[in-house]
């Protein structure tokens, strides 16, 4: 409980310092236009537009099943996609996954993508792309990973696995990190640890954050994009959106105040996923 309230306090500070005003819109680092995904004849995304800000955290929001994870996968080229994905002048939509990554994009997937049979050190070694991987930074942020470097990654706790996943993205000098629900299924104490790491990482590299935990989003995110039914339905300032109770309810299915309340309620017994839990009834 205490951790979540500390989150809320931090959030105010971050929001005041970091978030750029809605009026100034710097050229996006990654500009997604009309992103479409069809899998097995099912149209999953039909027209996602998304701008990732060149600094700080950009949040990708939406109800469960709105297409957030698919959007992240489509950017990475892990699902067949059409549309335009302009990343610093390079069109990603025509590139296979490994070349997307080599443009300087680190990806921490929803299921963490840990190789369970490999050791922690091997998991990290696999991610090395730079001549001098930043092990110092990773081990400073996650001292535990150094201690457990010879342990099989499959035997780690969920939080430790998430550290490996994020650590892999910080090992190289990436220009963008895509983190898909990094706090999913984590205990509240770990959630705030991960939040801390993300905040520090965001100081050096921009992050596209897919997240259901609105408290976390409120703390970290500057701008946000909201998806519904595989489309972009809102782009704008995160703080403004969460402050506008009517818009929050309409776009995210929940009032912002209720969202934080729900987060505090569910936070104690595991994953804080207020949006999902409240809107379950309306979405089916």
């Amino acid at each position, binding site marked *: 409980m205490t951790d979540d309230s500390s989150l809320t306090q931090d959030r105010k500070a971050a929001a005041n310092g970091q978030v750029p005003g809605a009026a100034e819109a710097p050229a996006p680092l990654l500009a997604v236009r009309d992103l479409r995904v*069809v899998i097995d004849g099912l149209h999953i995304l039909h027209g996602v537009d998304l701008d990732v800000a060149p600094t700080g955290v950009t949040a990708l929001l939406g109800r*469960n099943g709105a297409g957030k994870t698919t959007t992240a996968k489509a950017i990475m080229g892990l699902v067949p996609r059409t549309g335009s994905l302009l990343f610093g002048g390079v069109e990603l939509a025509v590139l296979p996954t490994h070349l997307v990554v080599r443009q300087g994009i680190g990806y921490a997937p929803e299921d963490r993508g840990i190789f369970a049979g490999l050791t922690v050190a091997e998991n990290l070694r696999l991610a090395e792309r730079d001549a001098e991987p930043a092990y110092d930074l990773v081990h400073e942020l996650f001292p535990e990973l150094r201690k457990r470097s010879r342990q099989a990654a499959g035997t780690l706790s969920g939080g430790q696995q998430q550290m490996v996943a994020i650590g892999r993205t910080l090992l190289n000098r990436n220009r963008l990190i895509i983190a898909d629900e990094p706090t999913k299924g984590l205990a509240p104490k770990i959630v705030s640890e991960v939040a801390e790491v993300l905040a520090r990482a965001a100081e050096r590299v921009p992050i596209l954050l897919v997240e259901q935990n609105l408290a976390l989003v409120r703390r970290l995110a500057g701008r946000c994009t909201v998806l519904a039914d595989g489309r972009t339905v809102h782009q704008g300032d995160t703080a403004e959106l969460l402050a506008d109770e009517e818009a929050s309810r309409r*776009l995210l299915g929940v009032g912002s105040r209720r969202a934080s309340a729900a987060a505090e309620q569910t936070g104690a017994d595991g994953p804080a996923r207020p949006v999902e839990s409240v809107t379950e009834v309306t979405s089916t």
Partner: protein
Amino acid sequence: MTTKSSITGTESPTGVTVTGPGGTSDGDSGTTGRGRTIPRTGESFGDGSTALRRALRWWPIALLILFLVAPYSALPVPGLLDGPLGSPGSLQLIALCLLYGALATGYDLLLGRTGLLSFGHALYFAAGLYCTDLAMLELRLPLLPAAAVGIACATLLALLLGAVSLRVTGIGFSMVTLAFAQAGAILVQRNPGGLTGGEEGRAAPADLLPSSLVGIGNTANLYWIALGYLVLTLAIVHCTVGSPIGRVWAGIRENERRVEVLGLRPYGYKLIAFVVAGALAGAGGVVHLLLTGGATPQSATSDATLALLVMVVLGGSGTRWGPLLGGLLYTWAGHRLGDLANSSAVADLPAALRVPLSQPLFLLGGLFVLVVYLLPGGLARLPARLRAARAGSALPVRIRGNEAA
């Protein structure tokens, strides 16, 4: 920035599925697989030459009549057949072609209609073949009861082994069916109790066969039996595929999980497909026994299943006429290429050309790879693909985009 009210629903699979497998038409239009992802395709095929299509709908009947009267014809077909159309040699070859066309059509119930890659279909063919033969040889049953026993054995075996094999999915299913079929092939080879005759196989007892089916002069009767078996197979496949069960099969083929989401249990439906296909293969075994006058262990080998697979893929799996076309072509080519290999025209060729040309299996295997690679829908979908290619560049580009990405 579109602000759209989003209470309607999510991407949850349930919402979309109902129209997916349910709306699948029979595969002969050639657009089933991709037509749905690109709605415009379906529309453009719908209108247009409707009147012509209606008139042409009767071509299978016309073709059937032609096939029925073929034995009365003395038309020479140089190149295609050695003797005139109605000669025993030609009729025997055409009958074999029809038989394999029918077998491939039955096998496609699994591969093309339900999406099950079975490597053990020859087992049920061999079961029908050997059980009928043995019922005559060992039990001294006349042909018809023996055939009933043979088909019943094949059906029962398919029910039993299908019930077991279908407990695993994907490539696991393929390997279990392969293992069972291999066990059957080994059994037949080892000649337990002198029953199967080992390598030699066992000839059907001439004294128990009706005299109208024995002797080279009666080849026409065997030919008509093969034709009848083909018509029966086509009818059964057509009816089952068009039935509600067939629509569930199509759903399983497209996406098994979505069928489960609809509250249906794929297992039972797959088992029906497996048993129907097994029974048809068993009946094919009976026809084969009559046509060739005996049972040989080659019928049980995994090569026999692979041959069926090649036929189906060559002709076009999941289409109405494709497997038949593939079966006809493969069987005819197999025989004709064998003759070609021994002909003087090939013998005079330089070794680099002669050696590959003298091996029908090499040509067929190579052709198979080419079809898989260049003609994913098989020969039956070739006209539709050509039409799409001619219709302009916009559509194919979209299709390719979806596939490649």
